[in-house]
Each structure stands twice: as C-alpha cells, then as structure tokens.
C-alpha cells in the first residue's frame, strides 16, 4: 500500500466510523394526563434526525446513532413538550412519556349551558348562522322564526317575541354589539306577530341564550339573543330584490385600501297585491305597508374596528275585525309606527392582553294607535254600552332610549380572562291614552365583572356579578352568576349554571304611577351535557327556574310584586350534517312544566303562552347539480291553556278555562341559485303550513265570558316568491362550494 492510499483508507475508515456508530434502540408509550394513549407524537433526539412517532396505540420505537448524554424530546401540538436527558450506550432503552394538554382556546372546555352559540370560533358544529336563518323552511328569513326551531322557545304566533321556558315575550331581550334593542320587532296589530326589524345577513354571530347568560347582560328574565354585526365586507356589491310582498335595493362599498366600507339599503313592503290574491281572515282598511332604510359604515382601526349602523322604519296598518259582543259592529284597529335605531360600537385590542368594547345606541319609536267601534258602513258608532264604547281608544306613544356601554377585558395567564365594565341608559316614554298623559323617565346604570377561569383544559369556571340601579324602580339589585364546565371526553362536556336575573316591570304596569313596584326576579339552575364534533351536535339540558316578585294586576288597580312561579323541564337538540351527504337536519324537543301567578292570574296557573311539549324537525338538502336547495321544517306544540278571568270584588276568579288543540305546522322553501348575465340570483319560493292545519293560538272572550272566539293566524298559509340579485361579490358562494 502506498502512502497516499493509506491516507485514503484512513479517510474512509473515519467516514465509516462516523456513519455507523453503535445504535441504541429507544422505545416506549406516550399517554396524556388522563392515561389515554396519544398518536402522532414526535419523539426525537435533540439536534439529530433520529427519532420516531407514536402509533395509534401510543407506541414508538426507533434507533439512534448518537452516543452519550443526549436530550430526548416528545412533542405534539396541543400538548406541552417534554425534554429530558438520556444516555445512549447501545443498550435498548425503554422510556414512557405523559404529556399534559396545553390550555388552548380551540380545544378547551366552554360553558355551553343555556346557550346556543353560532360562529366558527370554536369550530364545533355551528348551531345557527345567518345562512341557516334564511334557509329554515317556513321561517321566511326572520331570525326569531328560525330561533323558534331551537329547544326552549315556544311556538307562539299571536304575538311577536320569543317565549322562552315559561317566560313571556318581554322576558327575552335582543342585544346588538352589546347594547339592548328597545324595539326589535315591527309594529303589530293584536293577535298577529310582526317580523323582526333586522336582516339575518347583518350578523356574523348569534348567541341564543335560554338561561344563565353572562353578567354583561341584564334586564331580561328568561333569555338573551346576542347578535354581533359583521365586520368589513369582502368586496363591494350592489343588491336588488323583488318579491310578492316587497322590493328593495342596496349598495355596499368597500374602500380600495380595504380599511373601511359604507352601505345603504332601502326596502318597501306592501301586501296589497298579495292580499288580493290570497284571502285573509281580517279585512284591512289600510293594507300593511312598511318602508325601511338602513345605512352603515365600518372603519378598521389599528387593532380593531369602529362600526355604525342605523335603520329607519315607517309602517302603517289598519285592520278591521268583528266585535265579539255584537255581530253588527266591527273593531277597527289602526297603527302608524316610526322607528329610528342607531348603533355605534368600537372594538379595539389595546395590547398587553387588553381588549376594549365600547358601544352606544340611540333609538326613537313612535306609535299612533287608533281603535274605533264601527258600524257596517265602516263609520264610527256609539252604542252607549260601556264595555263596547270603552274599546274606542287613541294612544300616542313616544319612546326614546340612549345607551352607552364599556367593557374591558384582560387576558390572564393561559386563556383565562377577566372582564368588567358598566352601562348607562337614559330612557323616556311619553304616552297619551284617551287624553291622559303619562311620562316615564328612567336613569338606569349597571356595573358588572366577570372572570373566565381555566383551571385546566378540562375544567373552567365563569364567575360573574352584576349590580343595577334604576331610578324608575328606585332600587338596587345585585345578581350573581356562576357556571362550571367540565370536559368529559374529547368531544363531550358537562356544565352547570346558576344565575339570578332582574328586570324592570313592563311599562304598562308602571304607568299607573306610585305603585312602588320593584324588580321582577328569576333564578336559574341549569345542567347541560353536550357532545359536538365538526358535523354533529348532541345537547341535553335540564333546567329549573324560579320566579319571584312578579307583577299582579287585581281589578282594584292596586298592582303589587307578590306574584311568583316556576318553570322546569328537559330539552334535547340533535344536529347532524354527517350521516347523509349534503343533508343537514336538526331535531329539537322541549318538555316544559311551568306555572305562575302574575297579571290577572289569581293563583299559580300554567300560562297561556306555554305548551308542555314542543318539537321541531328542520331539514335542508342542497343538490349541487341543479343548484337548488330544499328546506323543510315541521313544528309541533301540544295545546296551550286559555282562561277567562271574572272579577269578583277586588279579586279575579277563573270564569272559564280550557286547552287549545295541538299545534302543527309544516313549512317548506326552495332556493334556486343561478347567474343571469353579470348578476348572481337566488330565487326563493316558500310556503308555511303546507298541509293547511287549522291552528288555534288561544281564545278571545266577550265581555262576560259567555262566548269565546278562536285566535287564528290571519291566513292559514303564507306564500312567498322572490328573487334576490347581487352584483359584485357572489353571496351565493355562501350556499355553494360544496365541491371545492
């Protein structure tokens, strides 16, 4: 061997030696802190390529070529990584790891008792988004109608509002970007529910809380509908719509730098044509007519957004129905309404874990109601019979409400958060009833504080307290709220909630001055089990609600706070988008046992707005090939009680009572999506109560309770045909893109 070849030999020997050092086999099992095996954990020797990954049984095994003292690392997303020293000597090593879950917003337990949250923050199957609202068959794009398919809500159709768990419509309040909405529904005539004022497309998130909601909200005994408006639109667009009952047009303009936007929409509804084609129960002397104009702007700030939304509505309805005491007379009811709503909000991340939410709203509502007894020639008639003539009324009512609210949030360690803030409302109600003036002024202030504490990824608590003062009621109240949530499995969790809720009595009780009426009160207890995967949700909830200090209105007009009541029940919800491809369905069932003594009720009675059993089945299927979606909704409610109260001396007694027949309705709608020239068009056809079930919401009694008349929907069915066009951004993408 020559000198040089010797060197070459040494060179290769060295190279070989480095390549093939002695191997050490390392193996073991990876588990989490609950002792469950974890797959896909990367195990490696720090600084080298050697390592492996755990299999579905949590096992791993690999060879390493390094020697001596090294560091072994086990890591997987969602867990805290573990590093520990290891001595590699060639002898096989067995090593096990126990990884602790990191507290993570996406996987952590959430307090879900009481609320249905929609939005993709949690990725769990969203319960209801804006598209769901417009595709619930028979809901006609109305948020409230869509929410009625969820457990807890009653199928009440003779008045607007959400009647939740034995509560009245007044006990549910809507909040937009934090502040309460004074008049969320359009003006209505007796026995016919009006629609909500707000389009579902205005909102990106909806929380429907049927109890135990956050200390940030108050003045709602039973339920809160918490709506969050959309941020900047994706691009500019123009819209137009034509339908059997309305026409509308709108414009949404996004600035070139995508930092701000503004928009304006106008809609006009007139039921003249529709009522000419579809006969109605009552006759109308002024066919329902609504104008609505809304405008908005949104400006992106450094770390947040400022949003302003305003809507102005004007409506006029005049309806004539037979007088219940005399077949020769009619009650003519006319209402003219003006409403102006403004909401300004500012959300900002201030840095260092601080977040600020400021909100302000201002609204004005004017109702001019005129009720007349008319003869067959539709002329004003006088009978000299007091119980008939007393129906003649003229009411002018003017309400305004200004609110400001500030909420500050600070992130604590992990994902725990503390939140605090306050709100102030100033409201006046001026009304003139038959030439008598009433004026109510309220200065209302509230302070609240709340903490979301994550003890581990699996155990969280929400502790809050809210204090309120209303000058009108002239009382303070302090309402504690407490929730606990525990994760029982990867997809399942349990939560328990307790909370106290106070609300001012309704204005019509407060008109009768100086009664010293205090807050009405409800105490909620909820227990909830929920299992959610990306495409399925199962939810079971039991509740008990206790009512105290409800308002009683005896014939003496000596109103008091001595009423009471309770509501208890069990609710079930199941939504599934997985089992059948492209079929999305949900089923909800509510069992409700409730009684209350309030208003004219002389004792605790099951209220007229509460059915024992309520169920809904909602189905939606989209056929991509024909660009058509079919939506069906079936709702059932067992019969509701009705009463006639007779006044005897200074008390009411039950004069007559009964239970209505069961309520059934089957609604369906078809959406067809297409493109006509440059505009994207959605055609919608819908019918509610397809099978023409004759539904009875309750009964109206004559003056002495000897005769009763059914309260029915104004027409058994409602048909709708419409075309919604948009230019610019394709809103239909919301519904499509199944195929991407």
């Amino acid at each position, binding site marked *: 061997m020559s000198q040089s070849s010797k060197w070459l030999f040494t060179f290769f020997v060295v190279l070989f030696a480095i390549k093939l050092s002695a191997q050490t086999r390392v193996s073991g099992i990876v588990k989490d802190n609950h002792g469950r095996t974890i797959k896909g954990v990367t195990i490696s020797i720090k600084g080298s390529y050697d390592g492996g990954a755990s299999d*579905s049984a949590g096992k791993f095994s690999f060879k390493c070529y390094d020697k001596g003292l090294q560091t072994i690392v086990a890591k997987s997303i969602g867990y805290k990584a573990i590093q520990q020293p290891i001595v590699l000597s060639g002898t096989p090593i067995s090593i096990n790891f126990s990884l602790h879950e990191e507290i993570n917003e996406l996987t952590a337990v959430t307090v879900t008792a009481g609320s249905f949250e929609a939005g993709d923050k949690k990725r769990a199957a969203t319960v209801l988004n804006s598209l769901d609202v417009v595709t619930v068959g028979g809901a006609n794009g109305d948020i409230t109608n869509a929410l009625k398919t969820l457990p807890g809500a009653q199928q009440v159709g003779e008045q607007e509002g959400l009647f939740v768990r034995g509560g009245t419509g007044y006990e549910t309040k809507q909040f937009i970007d934090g502040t309460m909405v004074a008049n969320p529904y359009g003006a209505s005539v007796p026995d016919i529910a009006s629609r909500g004022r707000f389009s579902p497309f205005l909102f990106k998130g909806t929380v429907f809380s049927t109890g135990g909601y956050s200390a940030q909200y108050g003045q709602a005994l039973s339920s809160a509908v918490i709506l969050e408006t959309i941020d900047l639109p994706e691009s500019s667009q123009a819209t137009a719509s034509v339908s059997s009952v309305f026409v509308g047009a709108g414009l949404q303009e996004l600035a070139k730098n995508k930092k701000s936007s503004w928009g304006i929409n106008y809609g006009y509804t007139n039921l003249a044509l529709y009522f000419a084609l579809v006969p109605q129960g009552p006759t109308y002397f002024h066919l329902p007519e609504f104008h609505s104009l809304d405008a908005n702007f949104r400006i992106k700030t450094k770390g947040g957004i400022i949003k302003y939304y305003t809507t102005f509505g004007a409506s006029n309805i005049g309806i004539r129905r037979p007088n219940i005491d005399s077949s020769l007379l009619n009650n003519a009811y006319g209402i003219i309404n003006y409403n102006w709503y403004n909401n300004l909000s500012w959300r900002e991340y201030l840095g260092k874990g601080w977040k600020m939410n400021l909100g302000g709203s201002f609204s004005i509502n004017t109702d001019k109601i005129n009720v007349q007894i008319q003869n067959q020639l539709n002329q004003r008639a006088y009978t000299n019979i007091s119980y008939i003539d007393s129906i003649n009324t003229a009411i002018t009512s003017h309400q305004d409400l200004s609110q400001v609210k500030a909420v500050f949030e600070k992130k604590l360690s992990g994902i725990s958060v503390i939140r605090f803030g306050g709100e102030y409302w100033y409201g006046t109600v001026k009304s003139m009833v038959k030439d008598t003036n009433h004026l109510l002024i309220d200065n209302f202030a509230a302070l609240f504080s709340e903490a979301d504490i994550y003890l581990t990824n699996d155990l969280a608590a929400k502790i809050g307290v809210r204090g309120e003062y209303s000058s009108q009621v002239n009382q303070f109240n302090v309402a504690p709220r407490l929730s606990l949530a525990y994760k029982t499995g990867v997809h399942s969790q349990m939560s328990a909630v307790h909370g106290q809720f106070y609300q001012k009595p309704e204005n019509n009780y407060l008109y009768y001055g100086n009664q010293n009426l205090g807050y009405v009160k409800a105490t909620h207890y909820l227990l909830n089990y929920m299992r959610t995967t990306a*495409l399925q949700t199962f939810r079971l909830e039991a509740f008990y609600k206790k009512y105290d200090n409800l308002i009683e209105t005896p014939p003496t007009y000596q109103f008091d706070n001595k009423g009471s009541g309770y509501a208890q029940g069990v609710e079930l919800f199941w939504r599934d988008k997985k089992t059948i491809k492209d079929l999305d369905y949900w089923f909800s069932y509510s069992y409700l046992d409730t009684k209350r003594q309030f208003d004219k009720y002389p004792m605790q009675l099951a209220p007229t707005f509460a059915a024992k059993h309520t169920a809904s089945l909602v189905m939606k299927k989209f056929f*991509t090939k024909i660009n058509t979606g079919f939506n069906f909704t079936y709702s059932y409610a067992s019969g509701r009680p009705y009463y006639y109260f007779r006044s005897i001396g200074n008390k009411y007694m039950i004069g007559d009572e009964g239970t209505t027949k069961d309520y059934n309705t089957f609604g369906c709608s078809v959406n067809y999506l297409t*493109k006509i020239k440059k505009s994207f068009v959605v055609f919608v056809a819908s019918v509610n109560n397809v099978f023409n079930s004759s539904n009875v919401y309750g009964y109206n009694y004559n003056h002495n309770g000897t005769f009763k008349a059914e309260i029915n929907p104004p027409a058994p069915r409602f048909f709708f045909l419409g075309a919604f066009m948009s230019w610019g951004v394709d809103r239909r993408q919301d519904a499509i893109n199944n*195929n991407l």
Partner: protein
Amino acid sequence: MKKVLVIISLLVATVVNAQSKFEDAMTKGLAQMKDAKTASDYTDVSSFFERVADAEKTQWLPYYYAGMSLYLSAWIDKSADKDKIADKCKDFITKGQAIENNADLYCLVQQVAILQLMVDPMSRWQTYGAQAKTALADATKADPNNPRIYYLQGMTTFNTPEAYGGGKTLAKPMFQKSVDLFKTYVPKPFYPNWGKEEAEKMLEQCK
C-alpha cells in the same frame, strides 16, 4: 506531516459527512414520501421531516414537506380530525415562514385552508374561503412565476359550478398559465417539484 494529514482528513470527513447528512436525509425523506401510500406512511414521513427541520433550524424545506405530507394524510384518512391536522400543518408552515417566506409555503396555506373548509363548506365558506384566497394572493406577491399558484387557483375555479363564478372555461386559462410556467420552471435541488402532470391533466379535462 503525517499528523497534520490525519487531522485534515478527519476534518474533511466530518465536513463531507455534515453536508451530505442533510442532503441524505432530504433524499431519503422524499423517496419515502414518493412511496407513501397509507395515511400512516404519510404521518411517518411528516414526523421524519419534522425531526430534520427541528435539528437543522435554518431549513424551510423540511418544514414544508412535514406540512405537505401531513396535509396529504388528511385526505387519505377520511376519519381524520382535519382541524387538528390543519393546526399541526399551520405550525410547520409558521416555522418555515420564519426562515423564508415564499410562494410554496403560501400555496400550502391555501391547501390547508381548503382542507378545513371542506369539513363543513356551507358554514365555513366565509372564513376559510377567504383565507384560501388571501393565501394565493400572498403567494403571487412572493413569486408570480410559481406555476403551482395557478394550478391551485384553477382547481378551485374548476370545482366551483359555472353558475357560481367557476367552471371549465374560467379554469382553463389558469391551468394553461400553470402548464406554460412549468415549461421553464427549474426547481432547485429538493425544492417542491409537483404539479406539472396534474396541471397538464386538468388542462386536458378543460378541453
């Protein structure tokens, strides 16, 4: 003299070894990726690239392939928790982008967004559809000549029905652009080199 030579040869051996170590690993990993068939094959490949990436710290490529093979595993295993996989992919992408922000990593962001969108297209469109769109826009800004951008854009358009602003006609020029760019596209060693055949196949389908 002898001693000096021994030292030099030792040094050279180590350096040669170090240089080829990364290249060897890349070659080995890419071969494994090519042969991978099942979801667990792909997760193994991903884990391998993850180890290489973590050991190297200055190479974005192993992070890219760790993300890409994990992404591919999600499509094979229908029961996989796609959101969880996506989170892991995004973690790799973020680490890769901290080293180098480029069109291929942005393309992977788009692919992962589509993966998450597909879990529930109806309710996720607004969030993940927008993310996917932004990712391709970022990719174009980073390198308008990357042919995979136009292939991915074409796929989205191709799979969107004609009536909704998609379809063959609109997708065709995108695939055409991708195919044209592939003609002159020369990737550096170990750089992403997929999409040429796929784009040609799609272009054929558009005719």
